[in-house]
């Protein structure tokens, strides 16, 4: 193995470049600051953007812990009415993209929305009602959209601890509440940090929600410099700053991931049976979160979609759907094949260098789509300029070759979702034991045969999951599609963006509903795995 320690890394490098080139391009612009652009950004853009980003990170970070941790504790360790179905139903909000939740909540809770209208009819006044289009509103929506990350990981932690850790603390003289703070929470720290960093990465990457709320952050600022100001340099300068935030999160997340390795297996679930007022309170709390984050928004979507069904569901619609499906399927297949290559390389050439390269190749999950879009577009534009004279000499008449083609979109989407496909494949590969490989070898299989006759058949389930997860993620994806799509290429997500930017909630509901329904597929997978 040691002889080949570099080989796996070299073979994985081209795939890693898919992520590395955009990242380096963006970071490089940080190294070549343009004073006049920075002066402009520093004066007009950055103060708001930095303040808003800080508010979001603290607000959403606090919010997802406040919802995710108690929900996880209740469903993993306690027993109360509805606990069984609530423990999986609380994952359902994962199917609802934050930008959908955003416009539904705005539509519901705004001055003209049904809630305030009803209040006015009943009491004659709704002026006391908190404004949804506010900083608090964005934080609330993002919290409801991203708490499942903390919930899922914290639940995992509490399931592995079980009641046992608390009992151990009790035998050493701590009451149950004291034991929770002293033992259960600190033991879960690596999971909590993991869930929190994922939620914060999504918060930094979010584009759709903050656009609905007109809440300026890095992603909207990048988008505006790109489209409204046509200033690619400013966009990359902003992107480079955003990447720095992201890298900090990545480091924290990787460390937390390492710390999780040393914890125990899932122990037999003996639960704390809640009594008295705690029983209905637990059920109510879970139901309230589920209703706010999923059930009510879904119902509202259905109502809106039904109201515009007759006028909106025309031929164009099948175009949006078809394009969404096409790009999602193409990206999912490409990404899954590349991820499969990474997984096989990692197994065949197990070494530090290979592992590091694979890690870099899957870094894109943390990088906001807006950043990747800029990072892919800049080198492609450069390449186009290089190629155009030759193409014209050959009789080509267009002004762009790669720029504005579906290929650019695929590159950016591939970088963003490599990890989504990689994870199920890798965990499938972990089920292929070294002993199974040795057994196959002792039966006379060569390395290549090993791949075809052992690895690939055993990875089939993982590959299917990978394709499905990617498909759905691309379907929901908004900023990359918006920024790199060919002119006039409209998908469901693009349609949602266009309708919401004009405040036409009902018209945005129809494509949203389709996205949410597809989004349910991987959640069902997740639920089945967790059961």
């Amino acid at each position, binding site marked *: 193995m040691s002889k080949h320690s570099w080989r796996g890394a070299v073979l994985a490098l081209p795939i890693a470049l898919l992520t590395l080139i955009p990242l380096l391009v963006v970071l490089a612009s940080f190294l070549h600051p343009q004073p006049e652009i920075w002066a402009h950004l520093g004066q007009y853009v950055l103060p708001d953007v930095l303040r808003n980003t800080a508010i979001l990170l603290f607000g959403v970070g606090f919010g997802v812990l406040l919802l995710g941790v108690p929900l996880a504790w209740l469903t993993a360790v306690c027993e109360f009415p509805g606990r069984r179905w609530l423990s999986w139903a609380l994952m359902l909000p994962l199917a609802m993209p934050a930008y959908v939740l955003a416009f539904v909540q705005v539509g519901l809770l705004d001055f003209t929305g049904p809630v305030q209208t009803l209040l006015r009819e009943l009491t004659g006044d709704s002026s006391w009602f908190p404004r949804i289009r506010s900083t608090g509103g964005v934080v609330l929506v993002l919290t409801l959209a991203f708490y499942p990350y903390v919930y899922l990981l914290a639940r995992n932690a509490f399931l592995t601890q079980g009641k*046992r*850790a608390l*009992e*151990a*603390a*009790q*035998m*050493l*003289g*701590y*009451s149950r509440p004291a034991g929770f703070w002293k*033992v259960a929470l*600190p*033991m879960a*720290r690596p999971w909590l940090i993991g869930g929190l960093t994922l939620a914060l990465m999504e918060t930094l990457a979010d584009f759709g929600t903050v656009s609905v709320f007109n809440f300026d952050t890095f992603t909207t600022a990048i988008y505006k410099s790109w489209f409204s100001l046509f200033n690619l340099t400013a966009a990359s300068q902003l992107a480079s700053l955003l990447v720095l935030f992201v890298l900090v999160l990545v480091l924290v997340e990787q460390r937390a991931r390492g710390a999780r390795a*040393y*914890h*125990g297996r899932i*122990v037999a679930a003996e639960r704390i*049976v809640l009594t008295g007022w705690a029983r209905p309170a637990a059920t109510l709390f879970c139901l309230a979160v589920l209703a706010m984050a999923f059930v009510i928004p879904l119902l509202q979507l259905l109502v809106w979609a039904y109201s515009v069904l007759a006028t909106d569901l025309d031929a164009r619609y099948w175009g949006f759907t078809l394009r969404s499906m096409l790009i999602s399927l193409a990206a999912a297949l490409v990404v899954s094949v590349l991820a499969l290559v990474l997984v096989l390389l990692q197994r065949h050439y197990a070494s530090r260098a290979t592992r590091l390269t694979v890690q870099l190749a899957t870094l894109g999950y943390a990088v906001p789509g807006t950043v990747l879009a800029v990072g892919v577009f800049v080198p492609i534009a450069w390449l186009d300029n290089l190629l155009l004279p030759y193409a014209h000499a050959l009789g080509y008449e267009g002004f762009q070759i790669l720029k504005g083609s579906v290929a650019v979109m695929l590159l950016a989407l591939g970088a963003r979702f490599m990890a989504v496909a990689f994870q199920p494949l890798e965990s499938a590969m972990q089920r292929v034991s070294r002993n199974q490989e040795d057994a196959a070898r002792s039966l006379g299989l060569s390395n290549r045969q090993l791949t075809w006759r052992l690895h690939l058949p055993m990875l089939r389930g993982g590959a299917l999951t990978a394709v499905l997860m990617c498909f759905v993620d691309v379907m929901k994806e908004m900023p990359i599609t918006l920024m790199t799509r060919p002119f006039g290429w409209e998908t469901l997500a693009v349609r949602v963006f266009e309708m919401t930017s004009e405040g036409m909630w009902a018209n945005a509901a129809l494509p949203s509903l389709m996205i949410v329904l597809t989004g349910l597929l991987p959640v069902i997978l997740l639920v089945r795995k967790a059961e």
Partner: protein
Amino acid sequence: MPLLIVNQIAIEFAGARRVVDGLSFALEAGEIACLLGASGCGKTTVLRSIAGFEALQAGEIHLQTQLLSVPGVQLPPQQRGIGMVFQDYALFPHLTVAQNVGFGLRSLTKPEQARRVAEMLDLVGLGELGGRYIHELSGGQQQRVALARALAPQPRLLLLDEPFSNLDVELRERLGQEVRQILKATGTTAILVTHDQREAFAMADQIGVMSEGRIRQWGTPYDLYHQPVDRFVANFIGEGVLLPARLTGPQCIEFELGELCRTAPVECGIGAELEILIRPDDIQHNDRSPLQAKVVAKAFRGAQFLYTLALPSGQQVLSLVPSHHNHALGELIGIELEVEHLIVFRK
């Protein structure tokens, strides 16, 4: 007055069957007791009720002069002053070894805590490892940390729930002896729960054999082996075979291997059908004996062979024979009866 009194306790789970039903025992200070039984017999439930994790439906539990549990009222676990070593150790992975051991010592000052932790680590032979994390230790070392953590607050009573079940067999017996020495050296009163009788024999002064939520017999390991009160205990403890027998005189019992005349431990009329328990050490190998049996199976045990022998009637018995007597399967060998303890049950 005993240190711990468990009186007629009954425990059931959420309306289901009674897991523990009318169970009683008492434990003197400084004694090590063991609840021995197959899995599902309720032994862990008894332990958890003493710890304060399970409520009683009937009966009561006293420790020293304090009432711990009665139906409807129970002192919370953290106020009982009882230590516990869990089956999976339940060590805290986010703390070091020393922090784990010092976890229950918050009433002491920092220097006192440090001294006590060092003392406990020395006691269990882990003096050097205080700064390590749990995942850096072997299974046996983790077991000792769990013990040190439970002993550090000087509990009035220590509970051990299958403490060696995660260890391999060799380590199990060695650690069993070691733990017994530590408990004796610290004068700790302890209750151990296990399904492994060798573990129970190695550790305990008193053993309670449990089945179906009750104690069938409470006694020393010697008594359980040589004076089992019923067939269940006779079968559960040690090896042996029950042979049909008949009462032939006021004090005489006859069965296939001969007649034994001694005070018969059952009262019934002459001619009554009985069963006699013959342990492997009751049958000795003697080449000159006229009594012959055929070797049906043999298991090498190092110093001894455990032979399964067929008597002329086809009835099989077990015999422990020094291992230099190596006989082939099918061979006839001479045996003689050497019964110290006569164990007879009514049929």
